């Protein structure tokens, strides 16, 4: 199933563009500090200067090089999203498999917690915590992950319940395999494509949240972020500098979220047999 999937993914333009862009942003995030021509906190340049050969995107109102700022902002925003996505995925998969495999009271309690978390708007808890305690971005990313695992674990749990009745799992139980052995060797590897969907959806949500929280001013003002850059630049939108100050973070944020949305939508399309292209229907 997995080999078939990767062959069809390679033919989907949305997946190709999405993953290509995501790789590009990953490279920028890793190499950004090395590529940045100036220190983004250096305030020694003449404020609001237009772009030049030296300063590709000009200078902001505080006398900082916008291009270097942008590279750091992409790095911070993207890594927040990836971290939160990975943590939410780990949490969601563990809870989903345990809940589905063990069942009984454990399942009931875990799924009730999931229902409650699903109902609470995550942004509100993040705003409250950020405003009261001013935590480090890392803690906020983990808190966000702790709030958004339920959708992943619901999907994983449902899949676990179907796999429970498959022959291979029944055989493993017959041979005396322990809980952890069966979960680790039989259940987890079977569900690989579901991880990708969950991870892409949560990473996208986390990037969006990070940009919004930064835009609302809930992070340390010295921390570069796409949302914060937009917030600062928006104050000067009526001046002729919007195209080289306001536009770059907006385009980067859109492309970043778009790349991950494309991957998620394309994976969902591939994995849901009911949505497949009508041409392929005969072969399914």
């Amino acid at each position: 199933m997995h080999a078939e999937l990767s062959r069809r993914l390679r033919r989907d333009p949305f997946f190709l563009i999405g993953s290509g862009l995501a790789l590009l942003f990953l490279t920028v995030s890793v190499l950004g500090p090395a590529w940045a021509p100036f220190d983004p906190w250096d305030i020694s340049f003449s404020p609001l200067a237009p772009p030049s050969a030296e300063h590709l995107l000009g200078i902001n109102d505080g006398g900082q090089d916008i291009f270097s700022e942008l590279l750091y902002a992409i790095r911070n925003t993207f890594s927040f999203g990836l971290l939160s996505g990975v943590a939410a995925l780990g949490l969601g998969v563990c809870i989903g498999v345990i809940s589905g495999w063990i069942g009984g009271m454990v399942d009931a309690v875990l799924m009730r917690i999931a229902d409650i978390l699903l109902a609470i708007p995550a942004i509100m808890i993040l705003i409250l915590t950020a405003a009261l305690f001013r935590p480090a971005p890392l803690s906020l990313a983990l808190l966000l992950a702790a709030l958004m695992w339920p959708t992943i674990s619901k999907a994983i749990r449902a899949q676990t319940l179907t796999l429970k009745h498959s022959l291979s799992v029944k055989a493993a139980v017959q041979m005396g395999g322990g809980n952890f052995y069966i979960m680790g060797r039989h259940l987890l590897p079977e569900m690989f494509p579901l991880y990708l969907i969950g991870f892409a959806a949560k990473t996208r949500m986390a990037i969006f949240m990070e940009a919004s929280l930064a835009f609302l001013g809930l992070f340390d003002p010295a921390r570069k972020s796409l949302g914060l850059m937009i917030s600062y630049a928006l104050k000067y939108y009526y001046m002729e500098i919007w195209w080289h100050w306001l536009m770059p973070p907006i385009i980067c944020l859109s492309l970043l979220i778009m790349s991950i949305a494309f991957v998620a939508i394309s994976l969902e399309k591939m994995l849901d047999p009911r949505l497949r292209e009508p041409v392929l229907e005969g072969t399914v």
Partner: protein
Amino acid sequence: MTDTRRLGPVIAFCLAALTMTYLSYVLPTLLPGDFVTAMYGGSQVPLTEEQESELRRHYEGDTGFGGYLKRLATLEWGYSYAFLKPVSALFFEALPWTLLLLGSANLLAMILGFVLGVEVAWRRGSRLEKGVVGGMTLLEGIPEICTGVILLVLFSYQWQWFPASGAETAYVTSGFFERCIDLGRHLALPLTTLILAYLPGNFLVTRNSMIMVMKAGYITTARAKGLPPRRIRYVHAARNALHVVVTRFGLRLAFMITGALVVERITAYPGLGTLLFDAIRARDLPVIQAVVLFSSLMILAIVSGLEIAYRFIDPRIRHAR
């Protein structure tokens, strides 16, 4: 059995509301120092001796969570020293604007997305379908922050078609009709931004669930009976696709509300988002606390209301045994 199943989500919503209220009570008490220093210590508004003792008197008789609930119910949410108004007054001033903006945006995006989804799914495999689905997927990737700013720069700065901020023109007394036009012109930019943000989700969900519904046997039967296509589309197919759209609404709300907060700020629309932004800048914790808690409670009430209404409308759930 049917009753517990019907009430399951409602219980989850009630517990979520309780959790939210408890968090907003307990988190400030975890701050170092006493309540008043903690809440107002980081604030950018210096308090006079008199104000501070008044605050202490207000919070001194702290009777735990029960007392907190009582204060919430009686609208004693404290006084904002950044805005020089009671917190409840600030909240209820901003609330109607947010309800107007979010309500109309959701309604329009829902109707547009649903009709478009049904029509496009019906034309499965055509060039129109591929184009619209591609376009919507593209639009789905653009966050509200970006659409909002681009629309602002284009329509309010470059072409100056719409005002850049506020909800109505100040100090103008005019007739009812002129006032409506004025309100509409101010609403145009944030409303369009939100519709553009909500539309793709509604569209894609409707289309996907329509495609599944259209494979059902009763659609073939309806076609075989020679019913007019529009009747099949809306009375037979779309009614069943609606279920998925409403269910997904609750799941997408956390995402949607985040965008709304940001969009209000971009066009300085005087709703809860802008109030929250200003309160964050002034570090006015009581206002932040009130906006966060009461907007969450309202979201929970709306979603659970929809859930209950839908459970009574859908015959499959009503008659489930």
